[in-house]
């Protein structure tokens, strides 16, 4: 992707502040907000996908080996996945 000049000068502003690049917010990494992050115990995971469906960031995906992981570039550490994982496969651990 072409590197965006920022901040823009007035004549560089997209007229109407229209953004033509769908979902370019991916460039903005919210992962730095988190104080804790989820870790998976894959032996307990039954691949139900509860973590994926309830993630407000939409940052949990299933890998080819069927395991689930959060993209830590975006995970804000809310803890919903760990709380909702009924087999107890997810634990929140402190960042650091």
């Amino acid at each position, binding site marked *: 992707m072409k590197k965006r000049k920022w901040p823009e000068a007035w004549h560089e502003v997209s007229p109407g502040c229209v*953004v033509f690049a769908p*979902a370019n*917010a991916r460039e903005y990494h919210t992962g730095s907000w988190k104080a804790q992050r989820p870790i998976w115990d894959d032996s307990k995971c039954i691949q139900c996908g509860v973590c994926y469906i309830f993630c407000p960031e*939409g940052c949990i995906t299933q890998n080819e080996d069927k395991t689930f992981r959060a993209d830590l570039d975006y995970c804000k550490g*809310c803890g919903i996945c760990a709380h909702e994982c009924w087999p107890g496969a997810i634990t929140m651990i402190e960042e650091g």
Partner: protein
Amino acid sequence: MNIIENFDLYAPRLVDKKEYLCSGHRACQGCGEVLGLRLLCKALGPDVVIANATGCMEIISSMYPYTAWEVPWIHVAFENAAAVGSGVEAGLKALRRKGKIADRDVKVVGVAGDGGTMDIGLQALSGAMERGHDMLFVCLDNEAYMNTGIQRSSGTPMGASTTTSPAGKVSQGQKTWKKNVPEIMVAHGVQYVATACPSYPLDFINKVKKAIKVKGPSYIHCFTVCPTGWRSPSEMTIKLGRLVVETGIFPLYEVEDGKYRMTVEVDQLRPVEDYMKPQGRYRHLTPDQIEIIQDRVYQEYNKLLDKVNGLHAWSDLQYEWGLFD
């Protein structure tokens, strides 16, 4: 309700993997509203235009020069999402009829918070629904003006402490009962009206899919937990959404052609306290006050059950009465 019993409710394999509202949005940790929006978008798919009111979801998703939207999206102001959506619908309709754009269905979806729907946006919403635009309107109700700092709205429940209905020495928080907007939508003759909550994702997704099949206006009132505004732990978001349904405070139902149906049955309502306890906004309430709320919840729930059990579909009524013979 036991989570294991209802496991099939959120089998993710049935849900579109594609995200239409991308990561990198700036919602708070554990935001139930953005989860509602994410699931809504999954249910809608790509052929939509979203008309978004000013509010949390607007600012967290569209910080210029970024957008979290995969789908076409427009924001104009706070109170006019339904009017803007009406215009988008009318514009697309005319352009399609005149052969200026592709000849395929594109659904217009209005999205607003409780303030943008139930208070300042109610007139525009009423107008749009009355005019019969082919538009789904979704209220993401987190029960206060969260974007401006947790002020009360007509969606704020009795007793909740907000920054403009604070619990004080002589006040017990919000002094009014929550406005029933789904019922107002039913009164408009809207063909499909439903309540939903992202804690019941498949129920929500199914309702969205039903709603967008309607050729005309439809309405979904989605209850969304706000950990910041409710002073609840962020990991409790899904749990609280479940509890609000299990206590009967926010029952999940749909009204299709005037016919009411519970979509998530609750055999035995849990006490409202189970739901209120984890939330800071209710912390000040005394047992007597909780009792008053409990009574009201039973009353409202029974009113709803009466409708579920007693009311006929509108199309049946027309037939039985033979009005247009």
